[in-house]
């Protein structure tokens, strides 16, 4: 579905089968522009170098017209004489012999960015009732009280504190875990950081983490077996689940790794532990290949695979939930309620929260589905459960918000409360890591994978 709002079109799921991890993609009109907040220093002009005859950036109309005509003529050409359309006069500022470079010191004419957070993950501190929201856009963790409820006419709710800044080493972090014993904040970075940072429960501002564990590239989700004090880490690709000592740091190696063809792991994302049944739940997006075998790639349906909690190596799953009736579509964070025997799964592109029976297997429909316009779900990527208050927290990547529901909510249920960090009804750019860009000349649209 292409959604247009104020010149912004969100192309969601184009890369469904193309992307391995944070893969929402965005399409925006060429002239779309976002302005930084007044509090932001924004751009700092370092220097302007006058360029003879080149300082004017507005092009003569005839140049626009000529270029546009050439572009438009592709439509009529049917590809029969494309080279003719491309031919132009080569005019160079300098020759190879002149050995001169003309420096162009002008400012950008447009900047497309989102000044508000993109909440990729959420965590809940059962001891204090605080909600932690991880921001992929501004590289921060914002902490709110669970009772926060942004009024409809308010622009946003301000957090009680924010962990943010160069010293924090927060980057494109994709999951948090709050230690139920001491409130330590664990957060894992999915891309260039390749690490798990641990902050003290009261960390605030530009604070360095108190512990750092290097983990495999594409580490995505973390959880802890508190009884055995083991830290579980999912890795998108090569697909695996690594298990470390809970307090591991530095370059410490995992105690064991679940990986191999028998595991049926395929682009691993969410993980969760059933501490009663002693089982490990893993969800998979279904993109798979052997990185050292040419042409071995294939696509499979998304799935949830279940293993003994002490599984190691190439262990086959005990059960697999997979198939069209499951409605799995970019599953993300999970939670197992051992008392109710239920598994909660965020379903980002499905715009839903799915609840399965913990012993389900095969192509089974969810027991409950939280979905619909009243839910205000918008690319729900992560969840947290408040067992004490029987509430389900969701972070919405698409609206810079967190919404909370009764734990047993089913269907199109409105949230009990909403924490918004952006104006109501804002459609986020959903930028997660704008590494690449290309331009659609026919539609004058900018294509950005994340």
């Amino acid at each position: 579905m292409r959604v247009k709002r104020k010149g912004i079109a969100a192309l969601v799921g184009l890369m469904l089968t193309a992307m391995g991890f944070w893969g929402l993609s965005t399409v925006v009109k060429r002239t779309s522009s976002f302005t930084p907040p007044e509090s932001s220093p924004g751009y700092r002009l370092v220097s302007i170098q006058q360029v003879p005859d080149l300082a004017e950036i507005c092009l003569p109309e005839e140049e626009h017209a000529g270029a546009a005509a050439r572009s438009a003529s592709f439509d009529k050409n049917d590809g029969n004489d494309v080279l003719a359309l491309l031919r132009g006069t080569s005019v160079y500022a300098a020759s190879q012999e002149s050995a001169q470079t003309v420096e162009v010191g002008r400012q950008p004419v447009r900047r497309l960015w989102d000044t508000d957070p993109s909440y990729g993950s959420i965590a809940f501190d059962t001891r204090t009732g605080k909600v932690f929201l991880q921001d992929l856009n501004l590289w921060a963790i914002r902490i709110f009280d669970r009772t926060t409820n942004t009024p409809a006419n308010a622009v946003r709710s301000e957090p009680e504190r924010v962990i943010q800044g160069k010293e924090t080493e927060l980057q494109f972090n994709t999951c948090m875990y709050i230690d139920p014993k001491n409130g330590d904040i664990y957060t894992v970075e999915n891309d260039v950081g390749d690490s798990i940072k641990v902050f003290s429960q009261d960390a605030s501002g530009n604070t360095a983490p108190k512990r750092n564990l290097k983990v495999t590239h594409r580490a995505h989700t973390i959880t802890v077996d508190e009884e055995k004090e083991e830290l579980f880490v999912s890795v998108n690709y090569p697909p695996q689940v690594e298990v470390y000592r809970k307090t591991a740091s530095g370059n410490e190696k995992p105690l064991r790794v679940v990986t191999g063809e028998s595991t049926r792991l395929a682009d691993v994302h969410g993980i969760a532990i059933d501490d009663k049944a002693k089982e490990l739940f893993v969800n998979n997006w279904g993109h798979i290949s052997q990185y050292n075998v040419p042409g071995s790639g294939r696509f499979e349906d998304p799935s949830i695979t279940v293993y003994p909690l002490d599984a190691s190596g190439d262990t086959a799953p005990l059960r697999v939930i997979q198939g069209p009736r499951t409605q799995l579509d970019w599953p993300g964070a999970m939670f197992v309620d051992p008392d109710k025997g239920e598994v909660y799964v965020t379903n980002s592109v499905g715009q839903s929260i799915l609840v399965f029976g913990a012993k389900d297997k095969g192509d089974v429909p969810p027991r409950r589905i939280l979905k619909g316009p009243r839910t205000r779900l918008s690319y729900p990527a992560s969840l947290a459960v408040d067992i004490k208050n029987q509430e389900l927290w969701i972070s919405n990547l698409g609206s810079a918000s967190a919404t909370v529901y009764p734990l047993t909510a089913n269907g199109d249920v409105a949230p009990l409360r909403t924490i918004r960090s952006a104006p109501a009804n804002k459609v986020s750019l959903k930028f997660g890591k704008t590494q690449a860009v290309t331009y659609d000349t026919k539609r004058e649209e900018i294509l950005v994978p994340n």
Partner: protein
Amino acid sequence: MHGFAYDDVHDEIVVNSPLAQAILTFRGGASGEEPPVRVIQGTQTQILGDAYSALDKVSVDGVNNEIYLPLGLGDVRGQSRDTLPAILVFDRLANGNVAPKRILKGPRTQIVGNKPPVAIDPLHNLVVVNLNNAFLIFDRTASGDTPPKAVIRGPRSQVASTGNFRVYAPTGMIVGRCSGESVCAWSVNDNGDVPPRWKIPVKQITGYRISGLALDPAHKEVLFSVAGWGGDDYPASRIMNAVLTFSWPEIYN
């Protein structure tokens, strides 16, 4: 994903599937969960990435109906393997388990980096490869262990390695990252340690280090995507994702 392509001749979007060793082609106007119109995948394709970044870029030559896919080494980052990467060239209309029509690979090509980005100049019939702070310029149909016909490299050239770069065929301009986290433009006719013709000091002006690059010839603009890198690359705005558009008519004239 470090690079993908829009084919303006056929109005299609070409991407690779990083983890599933595939090339996917979508309609240009694709939206939502629309399936690709073609998929290149399977044992005949020879497609190979690596453990660290898998596959991460692809280019298209709509004029000559070809798709270029730079391969990885099938290794884990940091491992040393006695192998060379390759550039696979597929027919644009290939679909299914299809072998590449050409492979550019071998010690004489000087292609020794991992998944080097590729750009095609269909007007001058050239293929340009960026790696190890150099542009290697080949005849477009070069195949096998063929040496480049020109190499732009050296301290005066300022060429830097990057995730992707572009060639604007009508003026023969190569637009890519250069030293000082700037963006420079060279000519496809350059050879040797040749300084760039034009330079935008993007980091100096904006505080951002560029990641992606796209051309908008109709409006004579260049688009840069920027994504936070951490460490000293911490922009004053604290906004870690952006697309910056610069007017740069000089490279189009």
